[in-house]
């Protein structure tokens, strides 16, 4: 079960800024629960952001990225109404893809 990525994309002077807050526990695999049992690692490994099917940012993550990963970046181009899609995959094979229109 995954939760939607919150995305905001705004274009100004020909440059689009994308802000994304992914919903994920980003468990390192080194923490113990109250009973002293290790909580298995569960974290996003791959992220891709695309604009009209063109990848504008991709990333590989390790468990040192904070829970509910936050990413902000800018790219040249983009126009209001065009689509920004954020896709992630985690180490357990779960994945999620969400989309927003550029404002």
């Amino acid at each position, binding site marked *: 079960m995954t939760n939607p990525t919150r995305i905001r994309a705004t274009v100004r002077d020909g*440059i689009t800024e994308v802000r994304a807050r992914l919903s994920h526990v980003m468990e*390192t695999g*080194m*923490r113990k629960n109250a009973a002293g049992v290790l909580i298995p690692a569960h974290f996003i*490994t791959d992220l891709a952001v695309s604009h009209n099917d*063109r*990848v*504008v*940012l*991709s*990333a*590989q*993550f*390790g*468990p*040192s*990225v*904070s*829970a509910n*990963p*936050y*990413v*902000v*970046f*800018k*790219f*040249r*181009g983009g126009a209001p109404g065009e689509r920004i899609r954020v896709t992630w995959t985690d180490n357990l094979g779960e994945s999620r893809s969400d989309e927003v229109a550029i404002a």
Partner: protein
Amino acid sequence: MNHQRRRALRAGGGLGLYALLVAAGLISPELAQAAQKRAGFDAHTLDAALSALGAGKPAASSDIELNVPDLNENGAAVRLGIVSRLPKTEQVAILIEKNPSPLAAIFTIPEGTLVDLQTEVKVSESCPIHVLVKASGRFYSVRKDVQVTIGGCG
């Protein structure tokens, strides 16, 4: 669990090993490729991570900016701002020196994307944070000492 496979994976780690495992039918070529693509993430020291990335000893550069507060109350989410003015920046990696897995993230920057990033990382204890930038095929880095009051990995 297949213990033999675990041992084999732990013992090696080089490119040749994965090829061997594929040849032996222990792992699929896709899996081997995925493991190679994640080079550096299984390193437990800064130097090991840098060498896995092929960076060796990167040159210090004043064209990379790392914006992070000197003092952070909560190590679980330390906000970083990264700007690179190096032409043809292809890749940006974030390494937290004393984390159990120092390599936090590798961003791949396609043409047309500006190297003006923000993200949040865990910092287990006060230590330097390094930003490694690959530009025009060469590696550059910048470091900043960061203090955390409450570690972010526990």
